[in-house]
């Protein structure tokens, strides 16, 4: 499943997409993220039959994800995103 966490508003689309078939809950991204946007939970809240841990975007950060991730995304010379780089499975992508 592709879980898109985030939002679209007048200014654009801001979604972090997690490929739950790839994520194995290793926590690499959680530790890489400087502002605790991501967390690993024991059960997928969107899939009651999945029993392995999975990463999600912390719920109270979803509505301000554009701002939360701001420091990782300087307007020019953007380095690779820590969370994306830290994921050995390539399970995380950002829409902006």
């Amino acid at each position, binding site marked *: 499943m592709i879980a898109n966490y985030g*939002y679209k*508003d*007048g*200014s*654009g689309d801001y979604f972090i997409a997690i490929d739950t078939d790839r994520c194995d809950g290793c926590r690499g991204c959680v530790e890489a993220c400087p502002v605790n946007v991501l967390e690993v939970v024991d059960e997928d809240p969107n899939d009651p039959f999945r029993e392995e841990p999975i990463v999600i975007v912390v719920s*109270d950060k979803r*509505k*301000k994800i*554009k*701002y*939360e991730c*701001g*420091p990782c*995304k*300087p*307007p*020019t010379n953007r380095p690779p995103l820590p969370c994306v780089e830290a994921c050995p499975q390539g399970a995380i992508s950002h829409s902006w």
Partner: protein
Amino acid sequence: MIIAGIDCGAKNTKTVILKEGSIIGKGTTLTGFDQVSAIKGSLDAALKDAGIHARDVDNISGTGAGMEEIKDADLKVNEIKAMAKAANYLFPSARTVTDVGAEMGRAAKIDENGKAVDFAINEKCAAGAGAFIEAMARALEVKLEEMGPMAIQSNKSIPMNAQCAIFAESEVVGLIHGKIPKVDISKAIHDAMASRVVSMIRRIGVNEDIVMIGGCGLNPGFVDSLKNQLEIDKVYIPDDPAFGAALGAAVVLKEEA
């Protein structure tokens, strides 16, 4: 040389008259739905303020959301360039400038010559612009000018969950029903709005001195929240922050002339 810098913004149109590099007049009008007459109105007001006639003006430069409507403009200046030059003209030590107006917020990192080296923009969502505070003032049934002075009377920090101006209105109504004092609600509103501007500034880096222009510079509640969240003691704000972009446009033309 006499230059008129006109900033046709979403809410107000502002004009600054620059003579040999010094400001000699200013004028402003509501933009409303007729940008062309707003442009004329603000220019006329500025000419009158300066005590000169339209024929005395050598060049006109324009900026702002409605700059395409400034038909007499000899130069159209991009908003980032205008704000960077304005900051440098007003405070040469400025390294960061932020412009927060009715319908947009911008921030730029500038060098010692007033050149923008990096910038970030918040637009098209009222949650990150002055329109947010305006909408909340309506929900609180308080005059817009009173919002800021109310906010600085509070030392509470109540978090607001809604990140949208429309949803925040209901949240404010809920807080009123919950008997939360209006001063505290007003502070919460300014904190919420400032946090979005601060995140934008953080994207380009917080480098002092920080200058703020744009209409929100007149709002002490907003400036207070901004300083607290940036964790700095001083934000440099000119006397008439709303004229910042108009001034910047004029300065750019002067330098390029």
